[in-house]
């Protein structure tokens, strides 16, 4: 490409950084508001003199709302969903990427269709199914952690299979063949050779599932009703109806619930962004 003049380049650099800064402003506003005094916000005092920053709101979240109960539930539910979904995806993706078998194409097609028709449309039948299983067979899925975990694993596994498959395809087949010739079984080659090599893919997939699970409000809202199992999004939503104008508390809750996904994202960032860039993850 033709090289622009230094002046034009400097202007473009400035423009780029200005846009980056502008797009971060709402997040900065959330953090700032979470530290501000309730009455200041309620009076509409925006950034006048006497900005009174404090950590009070975060303490109040703990005492008044038991927000950290929701936090714990989210961690347990999303953590378990991530582990189980990634495990299922690793197995299925390996089969799809490496082994030839009857029905493989049909399975790939089924995965594509689940991507096209989101599970959200099935909330009524799922709700009824969970109810029936509880009433008739005593299988507690409605309003329970296991019910949500089961659902999340099922919902996020097809997309995870697709990401994982891309990583498996990229590993040279010769490595496995060599191991098999040396006397390894198929399973042995999978566990000893392929799995360690695909660690970046596993991290990317797990990061992806965790981000999705952490963001899930819809089913958590429909399928749970007691505080012992409700997740953060449900907690914040209940909280909106109870403390309608406590924006200070709401912003603190927002900041606290962004923290875990931020940590997970930064931990898996290198691999995750690569997976994203490879076009495997949908935006």
């Amino acid at each position, binding site marked *: *490409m033709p090289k622009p003049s230094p002046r034009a380049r400097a202007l*473009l*650099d400035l423009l*780029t950084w200005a846009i*980056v800064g502008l*797009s*971060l402003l*709402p*997040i900065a506003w*959330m953090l700032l508001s979470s530290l501000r005094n309730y009455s200041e916000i309620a*009076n*509409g005092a*925006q950034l006048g003199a006497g900005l009174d920053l404090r950590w009070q709101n975060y303490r109040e979240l703990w005492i008044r709302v038991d927000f950290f109960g929701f936090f714990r539930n989210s961690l347990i539910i999303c953590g378990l969903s991530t582990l189980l979904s990634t495990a299922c995806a690793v*197995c*299925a993706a390996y*089969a799809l990427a490496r*082994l030839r*078998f009857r029905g*493989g194409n049909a399975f790939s097609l*089924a995965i594509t269709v689940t991507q*096209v*028709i989101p*599970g*959200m*449309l*099935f*909330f*009524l*039948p*799922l709700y*009824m199914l969970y109810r029936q299983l509880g009433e008739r067979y005593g299988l507690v899925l409605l309003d329970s952690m296991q019910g949500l975990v*089961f*659902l999340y*694993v099922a*919902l996020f596994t*097809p997309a995870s299979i697709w990401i994982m498959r891309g990583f498996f395809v990229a590993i040279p087949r010769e490595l496995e063949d060599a191991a098999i010739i040396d006397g390894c079984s198929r399973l042995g080659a999978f566990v000893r050779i392929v799995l360690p090599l695909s660690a970046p893919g596993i991290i990317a997939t797990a990061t992806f599932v965790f981000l999705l699970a952490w*963001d899930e*409000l*819809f089913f958590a*809202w*429909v399928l749970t009703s007691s505080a012992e199992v409700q997740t953060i*999004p449900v907690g*914040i*939503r209940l909280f*909106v*109806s109870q403390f309608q104008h406590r*924006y200070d508390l709401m*912003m603190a809750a*927002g900041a606290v619930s962004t923290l875990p*996904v*931020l940590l997970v*994202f930064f931990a898996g*960032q290198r691999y995750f*962004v690569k997976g*994203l*860039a*490879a*076009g495997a993850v*949908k*935006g």
Partner: protein
Amino acid sequence: MPRAAAPRLPRRRPDPFPYLLLLPALLLMAAVNLTPILQGFYMSLLKLNQFTLAQYLDAPFVGLDNYRRVLFDGASPLRAGLGLALRNTLLYTAVVSLSAIAIGLGMALLMNRDFPGRNLARTLLLLPWIVPSYVVGSLWGFMWQRDVGIINTVLVDWLHLLDERPFWLIGANSFWAIVIPTVWRTWPVLMLIFLAALQSIPEDPYEAATLDGVSRWQQFLHITLPLLKPVILIQLMFQIIDNIYSYNLVSMMFGNGAGYPGEWADLLMPLLTRQSFSYWLFGQGAAVSFVMMALMLVFVGLWLRAFRQQMSDTPHA
């Protein structure tokens, strides 16, 4: 017989190993996708309300009556808001998808240069995408407030762009109140995907074009855009699917979601859940879900038919 030395022959009997590997995923998908599809279709043929819900298998069979009601019967509460919600959802999907892709592409071009702090800028830009969508809803719900919201403060008090403080969460403005945060949260991830695609384009065609005196804009139109077309088409399809089922943002921005977000911000999924659970019209709700599913399958089918050729030669497939 020297079996060990013989080359491996394909086995006649199917090897159980791949099926064992697929089993967990297969069972899950059968339980959470296939069963509810079949059950949901059956439910859509039943008269399911608060009276027949408990023993729903014994509910009266009404055939296609639920479909007739949600599509044509003005007396059905679910039908009442459906037209508006459909209009809003289609507009919202079109505006969000197209502008997020346009901004994402523009920024990808801007970021595809060498500039100080490039990697840092990319990481920072992804932050809005990391913030959970329900947090985005409550954050922007606060920012859009008429009296205490920062947006009116900036527009009215600081920049004097407007004389009066507008209501953002009531009336036609509420449409933009849900569009803008969605675009804000979506374009960075599209930028990243387009950036990766841009970096896979070789330099040669640009060098040749520059030698021939072709302008940068013409180079973009005739080299960059055609090469990015497959990626853009795939992302556009995913955007359309995602935005049609948008739920979190609206339900968080407008209070506890049991409320009505207004005639300009009510989308299909919030309407469907709200009405299903407030009137217990599960049969009609299932019918709406099925209509949506059918439309989506037709849309994606047509899309793939029209663009399959172009989408399959993705530069980094």
